[in-house]
């Protein structure tokens, strides 16, 4: 009896040992694909046009004042309704808002939201952004007290230290604060053409005189994003919409002034597109998304239009402004909720395009269908300069006996005395061999 038990234990342990050794020799990534969750990593960087400035609620908004002013999300005015929050990744349910990093749960996607209102190129690369807050509060008195202070928001690329692995997508808009178009618009509203204070052309000319530096900074940002995110990361750069209704706003912003500002936004977008193209040609996976056309639809949705998707200039502060003493609200001249949706439509279309292009690269599929036509063989197009997705090439087609007409039957009989299924099988084998050679 003892011997039997001993033999049983010995056998069991030997089996365990054998299985263990077998498992260790199996390629690990196969197991990773089968059982592990490798989340899609999406990082959203940039300025206020990416953070969702002006679109409440902001992350952290629900906190008390004392906690709010130390909350990085609130200080950066990162909105739950920003366009990055509305992005969809094919194959992942929901939108990025459902996968904000830090929730602590295992998920198929992780979204790191680091865009910050007011950010310039330097704040992406290396320099923390200092947020100065000045909030009024009433502490049982009719006179308000002030809560003042400053917080440094780390340079946005530092997020990749936190993530610790390559990203799949990086989205951003940047450069608008470097050039300062928003300030130009404020001048339109606060100045006086008759008194001679506006000097719009000279201000815009000064912007372009400095643009070479801004251009280099933007290019550096794109390169540094790729270095941090990895060569596989798809970098999506969103442009800016025209800001003012083409008719202007009465005497406040003349039609001529509106035209001047809008023309220069278009020029800026052209420059951004050109920089992206240059970086793309140098090997960066980077794409430009033009939003002007979307905002120009139906007569235009700029600030002061009939159906604006961009806020007008708002003087005085809003409750969630970080500076209650500023002359104008930070919400001024930023996309509202409709504007953010417009941005999301454009960027989602780009993501879908990118994913479709990936799926059409160098794969072979064998599709066998039951029914009248029982076998079709496809190969995808060879990699070519034009990746518009050519139609698949049908190599062999084998009708079943039932689907054959008399004519077809007689035709086939003429061609070959062998059964059609065997011919099809040969064709299939030939095409597979050909495909293998190509691979």
């Amino acid at each position, binding site marked *: 009896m003892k011997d039997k038990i*001993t033999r049983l*234990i010995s056998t069991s342990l030997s089996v365990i040992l054998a299985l263990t050794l077998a498992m260790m020799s199996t390629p690990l990534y196969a197991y990773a694909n089968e059982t592990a969750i490798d989340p899609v990593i999406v990082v959203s960087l940039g300025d206020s046009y990416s953070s969702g400035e002006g679109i409440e609620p902001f992350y952290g908004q629900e906190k008390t004042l004392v906690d709010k002013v130390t909350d990085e999300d609130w200080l950066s005015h990162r909105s739950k309704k920003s366009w990055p929050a509305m992005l969809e990744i094919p194959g992942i349910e929901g939108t990025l808002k459902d996968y904000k990093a830090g929730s602590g749960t295992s998920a198929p996607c992780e979204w790191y939201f680091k865009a910050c209102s007011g950010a310039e190129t330097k704040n992406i690369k290396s320099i923390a952004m200092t947020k100065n807050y000045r909030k009024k509060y009433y502490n049982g008195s009719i006179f308000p007290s002030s809560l003042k202070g400053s917080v440094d928001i780390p340079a946005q690329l530092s997020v990749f230290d936190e993530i610790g692995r390559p990203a799949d997508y990086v989205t951003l808009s940047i450069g608008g604060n470097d050039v300062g178009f928003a300030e130009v618009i404020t001048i339109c509203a606060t100045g006086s053409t*008759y008194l001679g204070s506006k000097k719009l052309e*000279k*201000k815009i000319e000064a912007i372009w005189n400095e643009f070479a530096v801004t251009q280099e900074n933007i290019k550096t940002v794109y390169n540094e994003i790729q270095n941090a995110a990895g060569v596989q990361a798809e970098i999506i750069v969103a442009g800016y919409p025209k800001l003012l209704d083409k008719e202007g706003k009465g005497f406040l912003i003349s039609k001529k002034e509106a035209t*001047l500002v809008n023309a220069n936004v278009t020029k800026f977008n*052209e420059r951004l597109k050109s920089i992206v193209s240059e970086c793309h040609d140098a090997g960066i996976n980077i794409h430009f998304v033009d939003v002007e056309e979307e905002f120009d639809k139906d007569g235009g949705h700029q600030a002061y239009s009939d159906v604006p998707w961009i806020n007008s200039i708002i003087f005085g502060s809003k409750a969630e402004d970080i500076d209650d003493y500023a002359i104008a609200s930070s919400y001024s001249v930023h996309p509202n909720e409709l504007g953010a949706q417009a941005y999301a439509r454009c960027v989602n279309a780009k993501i879908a395009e990118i994913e479709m292009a990936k799926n059409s690269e160098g794969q072979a599929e064998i599709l066998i269908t039951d029914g009248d036509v029982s076998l079709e063989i496809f190969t995808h197009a060879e990699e070519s300069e034009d990746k518009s997705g050519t139609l698949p090439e049908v190599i062999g087609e084998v009708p079943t006996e039932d689907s054959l007409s008399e004519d077809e039957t007689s035709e086939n009989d003429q061609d070959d005395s062998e059964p059609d299924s065997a011919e099809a099988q040969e064709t299939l084998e030939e095409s597979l061999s050909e495909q293998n050679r190509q691979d």
Partner: protein
Amino acid sequence: MKKKRIQKKFSRKSMLLIAVLAVVLTGLAVAGYFYQRGSDAVDAARNEQLEPKPGASQSAEPQPKPKSTEKVPESEEQETQEDPSADEYYRENSETVIEVKDAKESKSVPSEAEVSEIFAERGFGDVRITYDSYIDGEYAGEKEVDKASGERHPMYQGLYASKSGDIWTIFVINGEVFANPVSYNLESELGAQLLFSETKELTSYDDDTNKYYVTIPKESAVIVKVIEKIDAEALDKLTIQEINKYEG
């Protein structure tokens, strides 16, 4: 007999050895599997699939050609009409052009220190005062005044928020003070900008010619309200409703 006993002992030892070995290896394999799950091997395999193949086009999309040429002309793209000269503009928009004078020659142009005093004594001491032209007319960009500087500039301005929360732009041009009720004009349905002045004449500055134009404007260009003194006290009382009633 001895042999049998030895054999028995050997098989127990070997069993124990196998048992220990199996447990250790199983443990190592499980630990190693979870470690490798996030390791470089997995990432390398993933990257290999995602990197563009040599020789393939780098483009994942057809790149739209920019509408303009690569080197964008600096000044030609702006869709603006030819601007009238200052002479033409004020001739067209004024009832009367009273005087035209060179800014550099004027003795009334205050220095940065002097304009800071002007603002302060009118209750605008906290206002950020800026200029954007040098006395010779050259564009300076927006710069904030230095309260200790004796440098003179043809035009100064600053934004003031009144007690009622309305925004005003205060201008000092050749020593004369004017005020633009920004909040009022933002909501106004008047056909022209409304400005407050201490006289019915306005002094305007043209940086192209570096000249002052003293004019009485047409109402189609500017609606002028005359007030005794432009200071914080007066502007705090001039809410949007009060401006609508103001007769001056």
